[in-house]
């Protein structure tokens, strides 16, 4: 289970060979290792955000999804780079695997925003309802009612989806807009308005592709030539606009009175309205993909209207009473649509078109198209103010048309119409009518969960939402894992990634230590099981208590099953509507999140076995640890002797900023150290004086003798390679201690800077002179102590690897002080690990010593902090 450490077995043996790395090489390796760890935590953090986003109903856009994908990928690529630099030539295959996964991600992101080829322009006569993907719903419906119902519609044409894509792609405009959205961030309305202006400017500055400009010009030539040429209404007909789910009502631009020579600018303006602040907000909140938005543009001859208006084939609000409503004004109907004009209205019974109510209002003015194409408001002739805009027979005619359109599309319709001076009725627009259902009352989703139960544990960190109940089963060993029953609550000291193999079976997860953005938390979210990570005292409190309810909403664990909490969490979790953006995110997540490489011992634990970016992070992390500790990495030159009253020989290599600038070439005093990491470690090492090796009983001594005969490094003459040379590698916030005490080999490393994502402490330990049983007993003892202070620990036999990451500088200092105490005070105690009594004694004295060391740290750190 802990193969990292298998390699550590070779550590001591490796040193007896002459293959020693130069200090420079070692420094490079540690630096690469540090950067790899930083990239690892960043990648896992964003993975956690993405998993959370996929299940939440918080709005986000495709550019955000893309940015997150790229951020994870960039972190993972960085890890690969660092690993390859740590050991040139060995891990190059990872790059190929990474590129393949990235390509698959691209494919998943692109689907839903497919591109194709086709006509740039379609004349109205050729358009049918089936052309929605090409010309948008608005134009498709008009084409359909003209062709199949024989209704009059204005002459015109559509500038198609292909035209839009050609404009976006061949000019680089799409990249530029995506870039502007990406760097625009997720700001408020002010940023959105700035973004709108920037995108508009970019669109205005972009010339239309030549073939598109030509196609638009020749389409205009077929239109009716009148005095001064035809005037066009240029209208948005975006893909997805006017659909049942998303009306985009009134968000995009319509331009009236456009002359053919102005059509290019009109097209640009309508396209730009796709990126208005309101349209972008609407899209974001509806979860629509901005990269799938396509603006088709309808161009229709202006109708010289004597009257016009709107028909709703159902009452738009409240109960359907079997009526339809027609409203009308004199002149163009634009005043009705934007709500600025008072209009006449008739309520008709749908089945026999009997007029139920008529309301004729007093009107002062009307809109007409002037000679130059502009829309002007003019006063009505005196005496006409109270005349109905249309005679009653036209009301009936409109009612019949409305019923035919509704029957044809089989859904309530919102129809815009106009009547020309010859009395012809034209349909200007028809779209599904959104009918407001009665608002139903539900519980407030933000109200706090109420429960009467007293928690066994509270204030735990939620790593995956939900609530559920189950039998608590503690898992520590490989055997525990095999016996883990279906549907139990998984209880563990540490959130080790290996546990992810159990999560499909588990009802919930509770771990004392670990990160809510770690591997295991990610997997818990993926399976949707509630998880609490960072639950102090969980193992002691919950072991053997039977059935508990784990509630990630309250951060509590309760004795027994509490159905009310579980139901409540289910209700909260219920988010029925899945938006397009969420769908896209869910498509790409399988390339990123699932962790299949859980067992580093398994044959598939290799680059080719990586199926997701998460797998690659896990593989890189594991291998980097191997590389870091597999090789004998002791530097041999550039070292300064640490002087003072010291029990052992220590050497120090300053990799920059670790010591006072004034210090000697060959020697350095403790008071000249400037590295907080080293000072914390040193405080831990020296707070309690070492009493020397423990008295060895006969069995322990015999075991040492036995080992000596087995290990060539212990033979006379090999003394140098096992010499008591201990190296500190120090930088401003960095410290790496490689020490060897007799038969023991140990590495402590820590980085304690301002950025918690880069901070870490590592403790790695191997060896001993006693037999395996005693050595393993000591490793277990040390593991227990380290875990109490938040380290994630893996042990294998007598080898141990512990780490703690992503914490503040002071927490790293404390961890280093704990490690420092253990480094000094556990040497050679393996020899006395024969009985439970001795174990208990050491457990107590080490625990006490750690407390002393931490107290000393608290006392001394203000002093050296002032000095540094």
């Amino acid at each position, binding site marked *: 289970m802990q193969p990292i450490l298998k390699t550590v077995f070779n550590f001591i043996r490796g040193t007896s060979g002459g293959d020693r790395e130069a200090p420079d090489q070692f*420094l490079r390796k540690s630096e690469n290792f540090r*950067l790899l760890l*930083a990239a690892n935590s960043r990648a896992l953090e964003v993975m956690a955000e993405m998993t959370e986003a996929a299940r939440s109903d918080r709005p986000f856009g495709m550019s955000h999804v893309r940015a997150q994908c*790229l951020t994870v*990928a960039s972190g993972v690529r960085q890890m690969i780079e660092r690993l390859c630099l740590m050991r040139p030539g060995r891990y190059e295959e990872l790059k190929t695997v990474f*590129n393949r996964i990235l390509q698959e991600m691209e494919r998943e992101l692109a689907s839903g925003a497919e591109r194709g080829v086709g006509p740039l322009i379609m004349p109205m006569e050729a358009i049918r309802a089936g052309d929605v993907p090409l010309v948008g719903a608005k134009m498709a419906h008009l084409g359909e009612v003209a062709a199949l119902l024989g209704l009059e519609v204005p002459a015109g044409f559509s500038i198609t989806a292909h035209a839009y894509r050609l404009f976006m792609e061949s000019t680089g405009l799409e*990249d530029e807009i995506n870039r502007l959205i990406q760097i625009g961030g997720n700001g408020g309305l002010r940023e959105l308005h700035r973004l709108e202006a920037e995108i508009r400017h970019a669109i205005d500055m972009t010339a239309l592709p030549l073939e598109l400009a030509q196609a638009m010009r020749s389409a205009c030539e077929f239109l009716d030539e009148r005095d001064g040429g035809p005037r066009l209404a240029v209208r948005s007909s975006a893909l997805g606009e006017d659909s049942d789910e998303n009306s985009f009502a009134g968000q995009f631009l319509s331009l009236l009175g456009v002359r053919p020579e102005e059509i290019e600018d009109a097209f640009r303006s309508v396209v730009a309205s796709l990126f208005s602040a309101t349209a972008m907000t609407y899209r974001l909140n509806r979860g629509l993909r901005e990269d799938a938005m396509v603006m088709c543009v309808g161009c229709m001859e202006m109708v010289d209207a004597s009257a016009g208006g709107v028909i709703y084939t159902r009452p738009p609000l409240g109960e359907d009473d079997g009526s339809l409503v027609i409203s009308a004004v004199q002149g163009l109907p634009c005043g009705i649509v934007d709500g600025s004009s008072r209009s006449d209205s008739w309520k008709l019974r749908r089945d026999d078109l009997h007029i139920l109510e008529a309301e004729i209002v007093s009107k002062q003015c009307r809109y007409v198209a002037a000679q130059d194409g502009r829309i002007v408001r003019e006063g009505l002739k005196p005496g006409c103010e109270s005349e109905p805009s249309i005679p009653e027979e036209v009301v009936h005619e409109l009612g019949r048309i409305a019923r035919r359109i509704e029957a044809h599309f089989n859904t309530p319709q919102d129809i815009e119409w106009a009547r020309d001076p010859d009395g012809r009725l034209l349909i200007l627009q028809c779209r599904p009518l959104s009918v407001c259902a009665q608002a139903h009352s539900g519980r407030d989703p933000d109200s706090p969960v109420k429960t009467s139960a007293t928690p066994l544990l509270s204030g735990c960190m939620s790593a995956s939402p939900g609530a559920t109940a189950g039998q608590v089963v503690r898992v520590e060993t490989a055997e525990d894992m095999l016996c883990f029953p279906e549907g139990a609550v998984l209880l563990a000291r540490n959130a080790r990634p290996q546990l992810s193999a159990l999560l499909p079976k588990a009802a919930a997860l509770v771990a004392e230590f670990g990160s809510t953005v770690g591997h295991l938390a990610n997997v818990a979210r993926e399976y949707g099981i509630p998880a609490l990570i960072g639950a102090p005292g969980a193992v002691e409190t919950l072991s053997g208590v039977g059935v508990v309810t784990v509630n990630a909403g309250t951060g509590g664990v309760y004795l027994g099953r509490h159905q009310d909490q579980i139901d409540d969490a289910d209700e909260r979790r219920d988010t029925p509507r899945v938006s397009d953006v969420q769908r896209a995110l869910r498509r790409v997540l399988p390339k990123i999140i699932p962790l299949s490489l859980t067992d580093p011992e398994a044959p598939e634990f290799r680059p080719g076995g990586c199926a997701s970016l998460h797998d690659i992070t896990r593989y890189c992390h594991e291998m980097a640890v191997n590389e870091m500790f597999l090789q004998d990495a002791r530097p041999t030159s550039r070292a300064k002797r640490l002087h003072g009253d010291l029990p052992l020989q220590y050497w120090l290599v300053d990799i*920059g900023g670790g010591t006072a600038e004034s210090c000697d070439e060959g020697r350095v005093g403790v008071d000249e150290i400037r590295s907080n990491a080293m000072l914390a470690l040193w405080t831990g090492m020296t707070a309690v004086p070492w009493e020397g090796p423990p008295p060895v009983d006969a069995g322990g001594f015999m075991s040492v003798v036995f080992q000596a005969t087995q290990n060539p490094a212990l033979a006379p003459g090999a003394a140098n390679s096992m010499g008591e040379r201990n190296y500190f590698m120090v930088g401003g916030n960095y410290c790496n201690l490689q020490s060897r005490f007799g038969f023991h080999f140990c590495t402590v490393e820590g980085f304690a800077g301002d950025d918690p994502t*880069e901070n870490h402490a590592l403790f790695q330990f191997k060896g001993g002179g006693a037999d395996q049983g005693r050595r393993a007993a000591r490793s277990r003892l040390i593991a227990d102590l380290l875990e109490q202070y938040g380290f994630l620990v893996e042990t294998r036999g007598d080898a141990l690897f512990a780490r703690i990451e992503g914490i503040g500088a002071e927490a790293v200092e404390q961890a280093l002080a704990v490690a420092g105490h253990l480094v000094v005070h556990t040497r050679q105690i393996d020899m006395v690990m024969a009985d439970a009594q001795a174990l208990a004694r050491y457990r107590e004295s080490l625990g006490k010593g750690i407390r002393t060391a931490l107290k000393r740290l608290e006392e001394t750190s203000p002093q050296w902090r002032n000095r540094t």
Partner: protein
Amino acid sequence: MKRIRLLLVDDEQDFLTTYTRRFVRRNVDIRTASGGAEAIEQVRTTEFDVVVLDFLMPGMNGLETLRGIKAIAPKLPVIILTGHADSEALCTGMESGAFDYLLKPVGTDELYFKILDAVGMRRRTRD
């Protein structure tokens, strides 16, 4: 600590101005270039510790610029900072020796720490 000599390459003048102002307070000597050719010329004549390079620029693009810089100063770390969330740019950029790939918008701190990483890596491990 030694001051960091940074070359910031971006075609957006606003970006250059903003970041120059932010970085001078932070122990950074900053030079700017508004295009690839200009960046390469500067690398040819001046010693830098790190380059921050926009990838989507008119004229010489980011990749060509990166390769040009690497040809002159193979060990000079180059951080790609782009508003273009493009996986191809990530792949080819890293394969051409970029130190890292960041997406705009980036916080000043985040960029500064990345610069420190790049410079630290180079200084601490200089042959």
